[in-house]
């Protein structure tokens, strides 16, 4: 029997949300550096006000809800779920007050899209946004990307269902580093390395392609943050198409592919386990599904005479497919062209790979390659079983850092999360279609939101209905948290309503 909620439960949640708010309050001051560099002094007060508000609310929460009681799994999941909402509402303030978005709802959409590393945008006139606000958008993606990994490792890992994606299952919790603080440091170390590398590469290519040095570095930092966090925001409305540059696309491709890999995989490879690159179930799965989907997309585009040459097919089909599969959202095709020019077959294939998603414990979203790989292996195991004699014992294992037996519990966990994503996908698609959009576009945009991708076929715009914006905010949030934390939060609310709160 589930115990009744107590005030202590709420205090634990509130206290920890306060701690998160404190961090956000401090982090919101960082873009002021960019405001000073670019002399955008009119933007500074907006960051100061939002930061102060966050600090006031958070410190009051931490003070009045202070508790020494240990946080349990149910609290951790609720904090994980609510922290995203709390962060969204606080960080939306500068976007709204600087008129970077048309309404506070749009600002919330933008920050949820940022934090969940989705990349769908409702920002008004991105090309004329201030440098500091543009930096802030990308910076939110970077924070969100790193944050979800820490949450995945420390909170989601502790749930039975979530265990499939993390190291906690099968007693492998010490693979990356022995404790949370050291794990977080390792993650930020890896992220900082690729952030610097990405910035330098983008900047060099930018300068080589004729941009001025300052813009090359500014765009480089932003794109490195967005690429590594598989976010997909860009300081330009044309996204990567702005640069008309194959080398720029290659750099983006490399950084977002690296960003979509599991941090345990990064750690293993950097620690000298090179064979992991060829044996890891996630890398194998993502390689196979990416190649197959690119083939289907390229065949569709070729058949319907959209693009003709191999170079064009690589730059359009492969880049878009890789961006979708890694849940990045960088694009070199206009959203309207995705809807009007790309045929239904490639567009639907894009929807499918957006839903499949990147690797677990990465900044990527979606169902995750490890679950797809596990379910594929389980499928083949069942076929093998059917073909084997009754007395035969058919066992299967998968390799992720180490060899792990494919148990029914692992398969069940993977299947449950997958079902959750499919339910979200159907809900989102239905709601979008109810607003008059066609089926293919509705599937595409919903997959993009649920899978935290950010590619659009034109549905997402400031003019879209408010309820659809709210629906997509929910989809991005639930997709990022892999549904489980959201369900626990809903359970908490139902419990509180039905049984009340014990003193």
């Amino acid at each position, binding site marked *: 029997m589930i115990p009744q909620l107590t005030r202590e439960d709420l205090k634990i949640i509130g206290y920890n949300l306060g701690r998160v708010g404190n961090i956000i309050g401090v982090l919101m001051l960082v873009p002021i550096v960019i405001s000073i560099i670019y002399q955008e002094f009119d933007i500074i007060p907006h960051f100061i006000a939002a930061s102060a508000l966050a600090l006031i609310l958070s410190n009051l929460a931490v003070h009045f809800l202070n508790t020494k009681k240990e946080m349990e799994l149910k609290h951790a999941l609720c904090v994980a779920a609510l922290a995203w909402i709390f962060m969204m509402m606080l960080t939306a303030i500068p976007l709204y007050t600087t008129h970077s978005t048309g309404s506070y709802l749009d600002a919330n959409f933008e920050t949820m899209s940022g934090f969940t590393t989705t990349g769908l945008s409702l920002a008004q006139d991105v090309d004329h946004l201030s440098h500091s606000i543009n930096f802030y958008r990308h910076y939110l993606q970077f924070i969100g990307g790193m944050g979800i990994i820490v949450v995945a490792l420390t909170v989601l890992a502790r749930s039975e269902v979530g265990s499939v994606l993390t190291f906690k299952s099968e007693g492998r919790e010490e693979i990356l580093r022995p404790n949370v603080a050291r794990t977080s440091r390792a993650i930020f170390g890896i992220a900082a390395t690729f952030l610097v590398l990405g910035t330098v590469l983008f900047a060099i290519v930018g300068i080589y392609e*004729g941009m001025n040095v300052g813009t090359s570095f500014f765009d480089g930092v932003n794109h490195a943050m967005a690429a590594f966090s598989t976010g997909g925001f860009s300081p330009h409305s044309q996204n990567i*198409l702005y640069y008309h540059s194959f080398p720029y696309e290659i750099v983006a491709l490399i950084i977002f592919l690296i960003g979509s890999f599991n941090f345990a995989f990064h750690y293993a490879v950097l620690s000298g386990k090179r064979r992991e690159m060829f044996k890891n179930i996630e890398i194998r799965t993502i390689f196979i599904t990416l190649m197959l989907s690119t083939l289907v997309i390229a065949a569709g585009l070729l058949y319907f005479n959209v693009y003709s040459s191999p170079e*064009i097919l690589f730059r359009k089909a492969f880049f878009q497919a890789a961006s979708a599969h890694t849940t990045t959202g960088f694009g070199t095709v206009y959203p309207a062209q995705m809807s009007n020019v790309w045929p239904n077959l490639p567009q639907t294939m894009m929807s499918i790979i957006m839903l499949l998603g990147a690797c677990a414990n990465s900044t990527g979203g979606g169902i995750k390659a490890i679950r797809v790989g596990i379910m594929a292996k389980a499928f083949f195991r069942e076929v093998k079983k059917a073909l084997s004699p009754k007395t035969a014992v058919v066992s299967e294992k998968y390799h992720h850092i180490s060899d792990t037996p494919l148990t029914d519990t692992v398969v069940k966990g993977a299947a449950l999360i997958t079902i959750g994503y499919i339910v979200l996908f159907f809900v989102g698609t239905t709601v979008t279609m109810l607003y008059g959009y066609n089926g293919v576009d509705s599937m595409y945009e919903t997959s993009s939101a649920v899978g935290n991708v950010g590619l659009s076929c034109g549905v997402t715009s400031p003019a879209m209905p408010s309820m659809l914006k709210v629906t997509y905010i929910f989809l991005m949030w639930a997709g990022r948290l892999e549904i489980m934390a959201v369900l626990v939060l809903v359970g908490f609310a139902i419990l509180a309503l039905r049984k009340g709160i014990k003193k």
Partner: protein
Amino acid sequence: MKKLAVFTAIMLLLLIPAVVGAESGEVLIENSRGFDGKQVTFQGEVIGVMIRENNAWVNIYDNGIAIGIWCSADNARNISFSGDYTHVGDTVMVGGTFHMACPEHGGDTDIHADNFTILAVGRVVARTPDLPTVVVSVVLMILAIFIIFWLRHVRKEKGKVVPWPMSWR
């Protein structure tokens, strides 16, 4: 003579949309298959210039849509301002061939400019801090600092035992 005048008038009317009535960015992108390979006129604000040897990419923005223009480097060098937060970019009108998937440029949607005219030179936009916002931000930050130090003091005084807020009793 009358026939010639009517003919000339009809021809002029046919030419006007191509010369004067520039297509909007939205129309071009929404109907890119229809415009593919056709001569178009596009007008908008310069938001980015990248010179590549003798040619250049100039990104032109029109009502929410920006399109890359492939033009001569000389055209690009004549641009005074590129639009951003503190600048309004030069307004230019471009006539050229629209490509939905340019075979020369890796399938990018672009316009290869035959003529490139700067209609208006851009300008610097002064951005000054809004006084009420400054006041609110300063007051809030002072309040935040006061609350942080006051609560820290209270916690020290009470040995980190914190009471419930009144409403929760």
